[in-house]
Structures are given as C-alpha cells and as structure tokens.
C-alpha cells in the first residue's frame, strides 16, 4: 500500500514537473477546411515537440481580424501565433507588430515558397509571415454548357469573351445564370473582385499623389461592364452573394461561369458536394489586353505577434505547419488533393499532386500572374492587388463596396456610385493625411 502511494506520488510529482515545463501556445485561426485539417493533424507536431502544447481559438474571419488587431495594438499577449492575410502583413510588419521569421530551421527551404506569395509577406526582404495556403482567382466554367453554347474557353480569355459566353449560357428557364460574381458589400468581398477586375481595365484606386481615381473613365468602364454583365446574366439577388453563396449556386449547377478564388476549385470538383464535379474547366482570369489580368493574390499565413513570450515555440509550430513535411503528412493521411495549395513551388512540380488536382497548373499560373508590387497598368503608390495596403483601406473599401453593391442592386446609378466613392475616398485620404 505504502509502495503504491509512493509510486503514485512520484508519478504525480513528475507529471506536475512536466506540466510546469511544458509550454502552451495559443493559435488564432479561421474555420477553413485546411485550417480544420491542420488541427486534426497536430499530434505529429506534439509528438516531435512534447514540451509544447497547442491551444486553438477558431473565429469568424471578421471577428478574428478585429480580435487580433485589438490584441496586437494593445499588446494583450493573448495569442502566440496568428492567422493573417497578405493585407495585414506589410502594414503590421512596418509597425513592428510582427516578429521576422528568421529561425524556421535549416530544412525549411524558404526559397521554395512561390515568389509572388513570399513577396506579399515580406518587408525589406524579411519574411514576416509564413504562407499556410495561397490563392489567386480564376475562371471556373461548365464545360458542358460551354460546348452547348458552341464556344471554346481559351486558357486566357478576355472580358468580351466572358460577356459573349455568359449571354449564350444564360438559360433562365432552366435556372442557369451565365455568370456568378461577388456582389456582397465588403473590402474582402465585392471589392476584392472589383479591385482586381479594375486592374485589368486600367483603373487604379489612387494616382501617385494618393488622389482617388473613381472619377476617371477606367473605373466607369469597369463598374458599368460589371453591372451590365450581372444584370443580363447574373443570378437574382446577386448583391447579397459572396464566396459561399456563389459556391452553393455553382455546385448546384446554377452558374455557367464563376470567377473567384482558386481555392474554390477543390470544392467544385469534389463529387461528394458538387453536382457538376466532372464538368468543370478552368481558365485564367480575364483581361482587356492592357497587360494586367483581373486576378488577385491572397495567402492565409501564420505570423508571430511581437508581444508573445513564447516566440521560439511559436516559430517551431509555424515552421512545422508550413513545411514540405506537413504537405507530405496531409497527402499521406488525406490524399494529395487536400494539401494546402498555393504556397510552395515544389508542390506544383509533384506528379502526384498534378494528377490529383487538375486545377494545379492553372492555380500556379494565376498566382504567378499577380504582382502585388506592380498591380495596375498605371503607376500607383501602394502595394496590393485586390486591396491597398494602408490601414484606412478596411473602412474605405467597405464603404465603396456598399456603394457599388447598391449600384448592382439598382438602388443607385453607376455614375452616382462612382461620384460618392470619389467623395468618400477623397475625405478618407484627406483625413488620413495622404492628401495635403
């Protein structure tokens, strides 16, 4: 009895000592399929690092953004690893809110990260966030409907071709809309699409002196084309549709074409959830022959806030989650098609991945076609393809998004929406001190 008590005591003491030694890191993330999968696979990390335990905080995207901003601005220290996007990284890194990732390990192979993605996550040559998955945008289309329309989708279509194809594919009697595009207001919703689209029409948010450009003909052409296209060939109530709504429509066979995130390819080609899985083709985002395509660049990435007390453990985790080893781990457990896309060049050279993901080449080509440092036809003073990497953009982008969404819903004219956008942008830039 005494021996048992003693043994139990010793075991408890050693467990306590281990618990005291173990370091616990808190990771803030969003509820995306790839992120959820990572949470399920963390045993692999904790086995290799028994002294580190992981706590997950999963939040809705906008709440996550607000929470991590509050925490990082007040140095609350609630998180050791944050999931952030290419919009936040340059702004936060410049404010010294993030730690540079310079201890990712010898076998990490940072040079393997796709250059366009690495560029969006670096400031002054230093990587401040490691990409977990990256995306651009492209055209997903129904091959059967395209055949029925007697057309062939080129690998790199123009906007005129998209309009022509949408007109022919629209079949209201059978509930088929020629094209589905984002209309829901928000800087990360309709404005992500419209900003990227405007780049291909030669438009820009600001000139070199930060003067808003919504009063220029390029923006008028962009918005008019978008509104006309959606009115003629878009779904009903399109001004309320974001990524998820359009995904549902496409999966149910109600869209001839959908121009959105490349990551959607894995959803629409999944026979478990998509009724059109075997009928989907892919093409680059459209252009107008001006040298820029209407595709964006985004990467959900893992960054370490400067206020953390557990930087080493956090960086070990970031290194594991964004490594080649993690890609192989996902492939071994769930197949190559489920490996987080858009981050490493080596993945696209992998024959198994190419076989499992028919959209792989088009995804890589789309990512490579985006240049966040030179996003527009005319010169601009900012970086970012579908956003402007300044703190004011979240608020301003959403305001302009509401105006454009109202134009799509028919609540205002294109001219009125552009005039109000110009006024709002001028006021925001003046208040922010960009316009003297």
């Amino acid at each position, binding site marked *: 009895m005494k021996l048992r008590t003693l043994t139990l005591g010793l075991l408890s003491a050693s467990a306590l000592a281990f618990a005291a030694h173990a370091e616990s890191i808190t990771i803030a993330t969003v*509820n995306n399929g790839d992120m959820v999968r990572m949470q399920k696979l963390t045993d692999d990390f904790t086995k290799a690092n028994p002294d580190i335990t992981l706590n997950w905080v999963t939040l809705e995207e906008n709440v996550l953004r607000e929470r991590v901003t509050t925490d990082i601005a007040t140095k609350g220290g609630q998180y050791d690893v944050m999931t952030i996007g290419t919009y936040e990284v340059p702004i936060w890194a410049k404010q010294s809110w993030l730690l540079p990732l310079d201890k990712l390990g010898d076998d990490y192979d940072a040079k393997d990260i796709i250059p366009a993605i690495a560029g969006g996550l670096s400031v002054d040559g230093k990587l401040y966030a490691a990409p977990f998955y990256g995306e651009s945008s492209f055209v997903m289309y129904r091959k059967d409907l395209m055949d029925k329309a007697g057309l062939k989708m080129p690998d790199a279509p123009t906007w005129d071709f998209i309009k022509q194809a949408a007109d022919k594919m629209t079949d209201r009697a059978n509930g088929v809309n020629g094209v589905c595009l984002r209309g829901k207001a928000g800087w990360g919703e309709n404005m992500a699409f419209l900003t990227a689209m405007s780049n291909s029409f030669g438009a820009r948010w600001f000139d070199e002196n930060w003067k808003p450009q919504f009063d220029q003909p390029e923006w008028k052409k962009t918005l008019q084309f978008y509104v006309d296209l959606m009115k003629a060939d878009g779904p009903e109530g399109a001004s309320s549709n974001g*990524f998820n709504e359009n995904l549902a429509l496409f999966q149910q066979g109600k869209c001839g074409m959908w121009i959105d995130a490349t990551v959607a390819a894995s959803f629409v080609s999944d026979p478990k959830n998509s009724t059109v899985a075997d009928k989907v083709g892919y093409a680059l985002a459209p252009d107008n022959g001006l040298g820029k395509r209407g595709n964006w660049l985004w990467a959900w990435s893992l960054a370490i806030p400067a206020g953390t007390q557990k930087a080493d453990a956090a960086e070990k985790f970031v290194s594991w989650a964004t490594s080649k080893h993690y890609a192989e781990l996902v492939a071994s457990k769930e197949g190559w098609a489920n490996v987080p896309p858009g981050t490493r060049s080596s993945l696209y050279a992998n024959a198994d991945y190419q076989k499992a993901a028919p959209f792989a080449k088009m995804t890589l080509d789309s990512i490579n076609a985006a240049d966040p440092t030179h996003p527009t036809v005319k010169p601009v003073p900012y970086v970012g393809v579908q956003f402007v990497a300044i703190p004011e953009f979240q608020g301003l982008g959403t305001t302009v998004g509401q105006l454009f969404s109202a134009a799509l819903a028919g609540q205002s004219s294109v001219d009125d929406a552009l005039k109000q956008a110009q006024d709002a942008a001028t006021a925001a830039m003046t208040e922010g001190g960009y316009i003297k």
Partner: protein
Amino acid sequence: MARSVTTQHKTIATAAAWIVALLIFFPILYTIITSFKSEQEAIQGFSMIPSGTMESYAEVQAQSGYFKFFLNSVLLSVGSTILALLVAIPAAWSMAFSPTKRTKDILMWMLSTKMMPAVAVLFPIYLIFRDAGLLDSRIGLMIMLMLINLPIVVWMLYTYFREIPGEILEAARMDGASLWNEIVYVLTPMAVPGIASTMLLNIILAWNEAFWTIRLTTTEAAPLTAFISSFSSPQGLFWAKLSAASTLAIAPILIMGWFSQKQLVRGLTFGAVK
C-alpha cells in the same frame, strides 16, 4: 350575438398568436432541421425533411469539444446573475423604499448606459482587463456580464419592490429588525417571484451575450457564443455543422426557458397593467 362576437375575436386572436409564434420560432426550427442534414442536403434549397444524419453533431463534437464551452456558459451566466443580484437587491431596495429627488435620474442614467454601442468602449475595457490580468478569465467575464446586465436587473427589481407595501417593512423595523434582516428575511421572501423572473431573464441575457464573451476570451473562459463563432467559415459551405453547433448552443437555454415560461411571462408583465 355578443357571445359569438367574443368567441370570434378569441379565435382570431389565438390564430394570430399562433402565426406570430410560428414566425418567430421558424428560424430556430429550420436551424434544428438543417442540423440533421448532410452538408450537400443543406445547400440544396428549402426542405423541411432532413435525412436524419447525426454526422454534423459528431464532427462538431470532435472538432471543438462542446462540454468545455457549455460549462463556461453555465458558470458565466449563473455566476454573473448571482453577482448582479448581490449588487442590485440593495440598490433597488434603497431606490424603492428610500427614494430621493434624484432616484429617477439615476435610474434613467443607468438605463442610458445600455444605449451606448459596446464597441465604443472595447479598447479601454480591453486595456483594463489586460492590466488586471482578467483576459480570458471566468471571474473577469462574470464581472463584465454583471455590469452589462445590472441596469436591467436593478430596473426590474425596483419595479417589483415598488409593489410591496412599505408598511410591512416599517412593521418589521418596529419589531426591531435590522437593515440586513429587513432585506434578507422580509423583503427578499416577499419578492421571490420577481427575483426569480429577474434571475431567469438575466441568465438568458448572459447566455446569449456575444460581443464581450468572444472578445475577452481565448481558450479557458470561452463560452458557447465563441463555440458557434468558430463554425462560421469564410470559404466553405458548412451550414449543417454550423446549424448543429447553434442547436447545441441554444438547446439548454431553450429548454430552461420552456420550463420556466410561466415565471418569465409573469415577471416580464408584472406591473404592466394597473
């Protein structure tokens, strides 16, 4: 003739009440139905007949661990309600039985704090919590929820206490009851129905509070509001899972509300008709 008109009115009123009740309850009902569908069924248009699969519940439990969040919700709502009552009973007592010229102003001022948008004080509150070491702590959140709901609790108790004749308290004083004894042994037992209604309402309000409970917690103190939030996805259709998470989050408070509805209705309409 008069009787048939009255019966007709009653029938119309009953039918109208049922229609309104069904309209109000329908989103909850559809959420529950959707939780028993597969993800593919969930996006395939309107249907009131689910396949009855439990896979969303299994995945929700496997992904997030419901019971930790549930326990936090129970502790936070009950704890904050007890704290609120401890503060509000003496406050309402003094305002009901020893009013001053400014009592009405104070009551109005307390209520006016509810009209302020919460986000306006997010940063100051966050900094106070950070400096006091209360971020992601149950105690901190109990205090926060108590403060948020205190104006309503004081108002409700004040209304109930005003219905109690002051002479009874005077009689107790004549018999030598101390202030403590007066509140605990005379006032409180007489106001039990009102206090119970206030408690129930406060528990529901605290259970449903989503602004602060999501923003001041991370892992240890996160309640069911954070649990639901974690199933909202920007890229991916997880409506069945989100519905299952919502059903799990609202079920306890819905059941509690169902069993205590008489008490709640009585409390909410108390003093409304004089």
